[in-house]
């Protein structure tokens, strides 16, 4: 059976003030049904661009330069707008960092949750409402029968995020894309949402693409991890393998910087010195070469290829033979 999501050679450019910015370069990965994949990267990595590209919600100034995205065998980039709309919300759903982007402030939560089910012609309004209430209960909204008629601003930030998740799940999507769902929340609320997502996993058969800048979030929750840096994929591995044997120098450095992993005798905070490379320049070297503590001549002369270093584990680094 074909993978649920196949991204092959995807490159996306943004129109810049002087020349195009290469937000994504030659991204290649696939997701199987029911798997949870974590997409990890910092600012400028292109992770949000990738998740928006899958939903074809990129800004007009973005251009898909090359590559394909296949969802369940269908080429998404070739679909008509109408066909894409049919997919969104139904088979591919998204939860954003800011729940207010998903929720309409002038409609009650109930109205929105019923509206989202508009394609279920065989369900009566009452039934749709009942489904919505039960989902709200499932995501931990107290007193859902009464609160379903409240407006988004009457809920706290954490609750709004739960509602966004409930709305995303209403369509019973095959793929749920969660773009930094906990970044805007305090740490105790973040923990609650992560616990919720872990709980929901039991009942939710779909695949989840979790985009985050935080390795800890990804470790809690994902089966597999893809690491992005400056628009390129640098490593992909099953989660246990990635954290136990990170092979790409960026992944290793990123792990070292994680505050949770500070050794007890640390005297200062580890950082990755330097800055992102020029995203407008053509790709003539390894994207991480300028900041890599292990860089050799070859790293600055040619970009490495992605190679297999273990079963299911790929990385692009010359030092690994790439």
């Amino acid at each position, binding site marked *: 059976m074909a993978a649920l999501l196949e991204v092959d050679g995807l490159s996306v450019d943004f129109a810049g003030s002087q020349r195009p910015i290469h937000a994504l370069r030659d991204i290649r990965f696939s997701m199987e049904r029911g798997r949870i994949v974590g997409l990890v990267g910092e600012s400028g990595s292109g992770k949000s661009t990738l998740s928006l590209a899958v939903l074809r919600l990129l800004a007009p100034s973005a251009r898909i330069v090359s590559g394909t995205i296949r969802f369940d065998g269908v080429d998404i980039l070739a679909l008509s707008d109408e066909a894409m709309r049919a997919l969104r919300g139904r088979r591919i759903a998204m939860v954003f960092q800011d729940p207010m982007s998903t929720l309409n402030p002038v409609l009650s939560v109930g109205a929105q949750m019923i509206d989202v089910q508009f394609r279920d012609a065989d369900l009566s309004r009452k039934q749709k409402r009942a489904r919505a209430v039960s989902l709200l209960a499932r995501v931990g909204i107290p007193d859902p029968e009464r609160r379903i008629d409240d407006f988004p601003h009457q809920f706290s930030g954490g609750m709004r995020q739960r509602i966004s998740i409930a709305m995303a799940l209403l369509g019973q999507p095959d793929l749920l894309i969660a773009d930094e769902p906990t970044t805007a929340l305090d*740490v105790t*609320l*973040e923990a609650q949402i992560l616990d919720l997502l872990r709980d929901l996993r039991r009942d939710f058969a779909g695949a989840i693409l979790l985009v985050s800048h935080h390795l800890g979030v990804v470790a809690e929750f994902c089966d597999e991890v893809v690491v992005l840096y400056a628009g390129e994929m640098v490593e992909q591995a099953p989660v246990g393998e990635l954290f136990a044997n990170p092979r790409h120098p960026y992944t290793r450095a990123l792990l070292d910087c994680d505050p949770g*992993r500070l050794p007890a005798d640390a005297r*200062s905070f580890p950082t*990755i010195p330097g800055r992102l490379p020029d995203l407008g320049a053509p790709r003539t070297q390894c994207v991480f070469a300028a900041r890599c503590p292990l860089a050799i001549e070859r790293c600055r002369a040619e970009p490495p290829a992605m190679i297999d270093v273990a079963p299911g584990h790929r990385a692009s680094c010359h030092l690994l033979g790439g």
Partner: protein
Amino acid sequence: MSRPVTAPAVISSVAELLEVERLRVRFRAVKPLNAWLGGIRDPMIDAVADVSLDIPEGGAFGLVGESGSGKTTLGRAIMGLVPVESGEVRLAGAAFPKRGGRALKAWRRRIAMTFQDPTGSLSPRLTVRTLITEPFRIHGMTSRDLGAEARRLIALVGLSEDFLDRYAHELSGGQARRVGIARALALDPRLLIADEPTAGLDVSVQGEVLNLLARLRGELGIALLLITHNLAAVRLSAERLGVMYMGRLVETGPTGAVFRGAAHPYTAALLAAIPIADPTRHRKRAIAGEVPSLLHRPPGCEFHTRCPHAQPRCRAEAPLAREIATGHAARCHFPIDAGGSSSTGSP
């Protein structure tokens, strides 16, 4: 290679540099009409309620809390940017000047603050050079060579001189933060209040700001009040920390001690909530519920609505700060003991 953080030699003064005593900051949260309509008896909220803390000369204190805990308000109250309802703030023994004017201006030479929004805290139409030399002009010190001062300050925070001609919107978040720090240090303050210095920064560069603050502490002997929701940042940046919940300090103590054994269940919950970058270790379940509204404070211990060890006494009686060990105190009837179990006897 990582540079070690060195605490400065303690200056011989015995008195603390900053003393905050039973500080209370009130705000009107609801307009009187709406309060009457909504049946809310008291429209005032205590953003900061009865907070006391000390920072020694050259010392560092980490003030930790989530949104709404009042930590930012406390920082602003110390600066005199928000009016204080009751309580006292003393700097090197001198009380906060209530009548404003010149005394207040002098106060603001000795304490400086950096703000959460790095670019937003920089006046949009001024160059970096003008921004960081503002303090000299404000305090009438224009006889100094401002050009030289600008160069000194920008180098102090590790930025090159090209940055002096840039405008705020031409700086990245990390650069803007450094400019804010440079400006704060212009007049050699004794205390720097850093409000969320790592907010919005990538993990791989958060260390840059924190290491910079540590270096400045070492070089200048400046004291630091670090306000953050990022507990991990406090671990290496401050010797003491305080945890705030709903405007109150629920636990204070030496950083190491608190991390090794949090006494207050809320602190324990905060520590437990940090996601662990290790898939083989499973985080404990998060605590339930959300922070209650400041308009309707729970009776007794305000944390009892969410506390996994809550007992009837917690609902009935507000706990006082009780000392667990030297310099380590918590506001809890049943603090968690050294073994990590609740002293209620429940698991």
